[in-house]
């Protein structure tokens, strides 16, 4: 399964485990923090003709630390009639699943935390657990707004898990593997009708799948136009209503880390992941263990920028409209996409 060689070092299993934990934490918190600062604080502020945070650090770049400090100081309140165990557990469940999602994303030729042959399957399976955390939070809060928010989140999960998986199936058929490193290699070394100058990034050849996947990601993350679980103007803040202090912070981290995780998965599946087209350079170079994460982060920022641009431009769907979109539009389209991909794969 996993190589015992990391960055050319021979490591014992326990040493690998520590490295993995540190690696995952860095991989989760770094993009999450970047996303919050770049998109939530700055890009949105410029979109809304304001400056955003300017005081903490140069251009407000340390604002996030200030916010974290603020949340850590706040009282951690549990409502009196809440289901205390579930209420306290829910945020950890959400953050934990996001950490697991990152496990299978490759950052370089040898730079991966865990290498599964069924990597993408694992990532999609694990990521859907976070909606359980949301459902728990909604239920355990003993608040009607939270309950409605949690139920909406559950409905959304079921509706959008399916098109997401079906969209990925097209990629898997084309790459011929579910291993995420294999998918990266297939894109870097591929060719479009014999032209291999840019390899075969699947967002071109799997454009329909890419669009469906991105819509499903938007819904899975609960970003506008699919933010009904939170829906500030209707449900106050949905399942987050009763949370404060560190637990709210955990949800917040979970939200943006999940945005990062799905950006990473989308970048890997459709934009070629950590690699550049192998027509340009030899990819089996150790330098890519350093360049890979940077390339991947760049692609993640593209995807993330897209996600947040949509979030702050569009209004919100209604719950039934969301369901209708998933079941009557996205799922048929992605099924047709699979069919066409299969036919073309066999034909060429």
């Amino acid at each position, binding site marked *: 399964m996993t190589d015992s060689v990391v960055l050319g070092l021979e490591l014992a299993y326990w040493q690998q485990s520590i490295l993995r934990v540190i690696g995952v934490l860095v991989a989760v918190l770094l993009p999450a923090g970047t996303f919050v600062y770049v998109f939530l604080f700055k890009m*949105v502020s410029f*979109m*809304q*003709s*304001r400056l955003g945070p300017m005081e903490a650090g140069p251009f407000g770049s340390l604002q996030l630390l200030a916010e974290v400090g603020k949340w850590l100081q706040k009282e951690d309140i549990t409502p009196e*009639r809440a289901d205390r165990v579930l209420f306290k557990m829910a945020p950890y469940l959400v953050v934990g699943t996001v950490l697991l999602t990152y496990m299978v994303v490759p950052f370089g030729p040898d730079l991966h935390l865990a290498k599964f042959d069924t990597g993408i399957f694992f990532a999609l399976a694990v990521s859907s657990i976070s909606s359980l955390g949301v459902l728990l939070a909604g239920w355990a809060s*003993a608040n*009607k*707004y939270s*309950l*409605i928010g949690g139920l909406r989140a559950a409905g959304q999960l079921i509706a959008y898990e399916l098109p997401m998986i079906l969209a990925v199936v097209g990629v898997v058929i084309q790459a011929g593997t579910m291993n995420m490193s294999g998918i990266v290699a297939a894109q870097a070394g591929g060719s479009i009708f014999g032209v291999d100058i840019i390899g075969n990034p699947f967002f071109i050849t799997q454009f329909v799948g890419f669009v469906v996947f991105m819509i499903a990601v938007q819904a899975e993350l609960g970003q*506008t*136009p699919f*933010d*009904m679980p939170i*829906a*500030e*103007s*209707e*449900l*106050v803040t949905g399942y987050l209503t009763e949370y404060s202090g560190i637990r709210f912070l955990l949800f917040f981290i979970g939200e943006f880390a999940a945005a990062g995780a799905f950006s990473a998965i989308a970048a890997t599946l459709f934009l070629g992941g950590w690699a550049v087209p192998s027509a340009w350079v030899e990819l089996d170079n150790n330098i890519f263990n350093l360049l890979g994460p940077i390339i991947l982060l760049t692609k993640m920022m593209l995807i993330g920028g897209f996600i947040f641009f949509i979030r*702050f*431009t*569009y*209004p*919100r*769907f*209604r*719950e*039934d*409209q969301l369901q209708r979109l998933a079941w009557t539009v996205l799922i048929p389209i992605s099924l047709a996409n699979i069919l066409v991909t299969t036919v073309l794969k066999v034909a060429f």
Partner: protein
Amino acid sequence: MTAVSDRQKLAYVNSQAADGRVNLEFETEEGMTLNLGPQHPATHGTLRIVVKLDGEQVLSCEPVMGYMHRGYEKLTEVRTYPQVTTLINRIDWLGSFANEVPFILAAEKLMEIEAPPRAQWIRTILFELSRIANISLFVGDMALHIGAMTAAFYAFRDREFVLNQIESATGGRFHPNFNRIGGLKDDLPKGWVADTKASLERIRDFCDEMEILVEGNEIFQARTRGIGVIPSEIALQFGLSGANLRASGVDWDLRRDQPVGLVWDKVDWKVITHPDGDSFARFWVRLQEIRESCNIVEQLLDGLPAGPYMAKVPRVIKVPEGEAWVATENPLGEMGYYLVSQGGLGPFRVKIRTASFNNVSVVPWVCRGVYVPDVVTILASLYFILGDIDR
């Protein structure tokens, strides 16, 4: 929902104990009761809406007001006429100037004074500017309630330009208290006309921007079209007014149909109506009315007559005996004052007929069988100001 019913009952008993002020009939056996408000992002103020739900579907819906009732009708009886305008500025606090005008006009009608032409023109200009300021906020606010946050910031940004003009003319951004019986407190400052024209250009750009960003958006249309349809007959029954009435296809605008002593008839503009009567129609009508208001103000600025801004009035304002009703087409709809004078220094009785009170009274009728998000859409599209409901 049955699994939470015990908790619902507990919450209900507790809410009754803590808040015995309202005796509504809750039937918690079926469905679930959700309190939207009194503190809720969608009610911009302290309105409480008790919604009975089956899942997300609304079975019935009952607005509960009074959290901001200030008793202005009683207070007017112990104040003199010039002091009353200070109070009524606070009714619809986003269009304060427009609140003063009908009251002043009613008093002038009983005193048989007419404000000089320049005062009438300036009143009309400021009236329309407060309409622009008020409704441009509505445009952003409705988008915000449907989930598009960015439009709200644009609305706040561009409203500033109009508020600045109101401020530089009257000295107050929100509560100008600028009308006097017989005219105005002051003349316009130097250079005001040119500045106002520049700010109107900003507002026109804002309208274009909103048409692209909000009105043309497919999700916005999906959320508002066919939601909260109010037929014209129902609208008249409940006494809806303003854009809510015109969005139901009733061609009625007090600015055109009931001249009261302002100069709308001197300029060329048209009444906007929409046949659908749904939330989208209400949004669309208001957005178009901003443009029309810009046209009105621009023409009025071009033709602003010279002359005094204050008529000759006695030093002590005593209004002769009589009753008068004056209503004007305020930003929120028809606002009228039924003024009863018995010849004293202050009114004997003032019945304040505000637009929002009637507009919101249709909510229980229109919010049956819709979903929770639609309640928010409908409330936003009816556009109320809490001070205008509670007075």
